[in-house]
Structure formats: C-alpha cells, structure tokens
C-alpha cells in the first residue's frame, strides 16, 4: 500500500488504513485517543440521551472563565 510522502499525511493515512496488530504502541495510542474522546467529551456536546453535564472539559472551561 502506497503511503503519502509527508509525515502528517502518513500519520493520518496509517490511522485511517489501520494495519497494526493489538498490543502494539500504535494500538495503545489509538485506545488512549478513543478513551479520551469517550470520557472527556461533555455529554451535552453529543446530546447524550442518558448522561448529562459538561464533563471534565466543561468543568475545566468553567474554571478558566
């Protein structure tokens, strides 16, 4: 599979065209990104039907205001 020439392009392409096995550092990185999205995104931003509140990001933004 032909990879894009630039580094950001390669990173994006490899994230999209996923060929890494489980228990590799790339897999760990993806898991961390997913967990960060699931746990840090305020439920209100997603219109979550069962969870409410602004979550950790909302809490942090409130503190910074």
């Amino acid at each position, binding site marked *: *599979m032909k990879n894009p020439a630039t580094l950001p392009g390669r990173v994006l392409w490899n994230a*999209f*065209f*996923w*060929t890494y096995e*489980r*228990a*590799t*550092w790339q*897999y*760990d990185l*993806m*898991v961390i990104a*997913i*967990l960060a*999205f*699931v*746990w840090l*995104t305020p*439920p209100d931003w*997603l*219109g*979550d*039907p*069962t*969870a409410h509140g602004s979550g950790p990001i909302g809490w942090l933004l409130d503190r910074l205001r």
Partner: protein
Amino acid sequence: MTFTGLVGRICLFPLRAIIRACVVLQIHPNVLTFVGVLINFAAAWALALGRFVTAGFIMIVANIFDFIDGKVAVELGQVSEFGGFWDSVIDRFSDIALFIGLIYLYSHLGRTDYVMITSLAMMFSIMTSYTRARAESLIAKCKVGFMERPERIVLFMIGAFTNRMAGVLWVILVLSIFTVADRIILTYRELRTTGREAVV
C-alpha cells in the same frame, strides 16, 4: 510490554481457570457459544431498560463464554469447521442484540437522532464482519481496520459502566465506517494486483 498487552495478560489469568473447569466438565464448545448469546440477550434487555451497569456486568459474563469457547474446543480436541461457522453466526446475533437493546431505549426516550446513530453503527458493524468474510473468499487475508468485535464489546462495556454510551456509539460508527472502507480498498487493490478485478 504495551499497556493493552498488560491488560490482556491480566484478564487472561482468571480465564485460564474457567477454561480448565470447562475442560474438566467436558462442556461442548458449541454449548458455551450458545449460552454466551443467551446471556447477551439478557444484557440487551438491560440496555433496553436503561440499566447500563447491570448490562455491563451481564456483558462481562456473556463474553467470558464467548472468549473461552474456542480455547475449550482446542483443549478438548473438538475444533471443527462447523464450530467456527457456528461461532461467527452466533457472534452476529450477540452484536445485533446489543444494538437493538439501545435502539429500543432511545426510541422509548423519543430520541430519533440516537436511534439513527445506533442503527448506522449496527449496519457498519455487521458490514465489518461481512466484508472480511466475503473478501477472504477472494483474497488470502483481509485483516485491516481497527474496529473489530473485541474492540466493539470492550467499548460497549466502557459505555455501560461509565454511562458514556453516546460517545461510544459515535466511536463505533466512525471507526466501523473506516474499517469497512479499509477492507473494500484492500480487496480492490489485491484483486487488481493479481489481475482478477477485470473478470469481476
């Protein structure tokens, strides 16, 4: 040792004892598979009622059965082609049941948007399995894409235990779309390389 590798090793430790118990009791692996799907139906029911934590615990039990059936088959020397087929078919029922549980819940709450998101996530999850099965009838291997069944199940459990099901559904939907696309692209390129796509 990676983080996910360590988690896998820790989880495998208690499972070894369960596998040993099933081997000693001579439980047929196909029975384990079937019991797994029945327990998954109970998890789907709990999701439908909005009892996420209960559903999470039931999913853990169901997926223990799902995980150990293949290992027990190897230990008992009962690996068969039908067993592999049966396992794949039953897995699809388990997958779909969990999504239907959520669709029921969201429609009961009057949330048409999440009924659609869950339905699309279900469609692409099924297509993830189908594209690989169909591709591997044409090419040697089609194991690309991140969002496979184990990832889906773990995400469902995380969503259930931490009440973050909306985020989980978005992740499953987007990454399942990528996985299906990856498999179509790989199959097309493999067939083009071997010059078989001209015949199709």
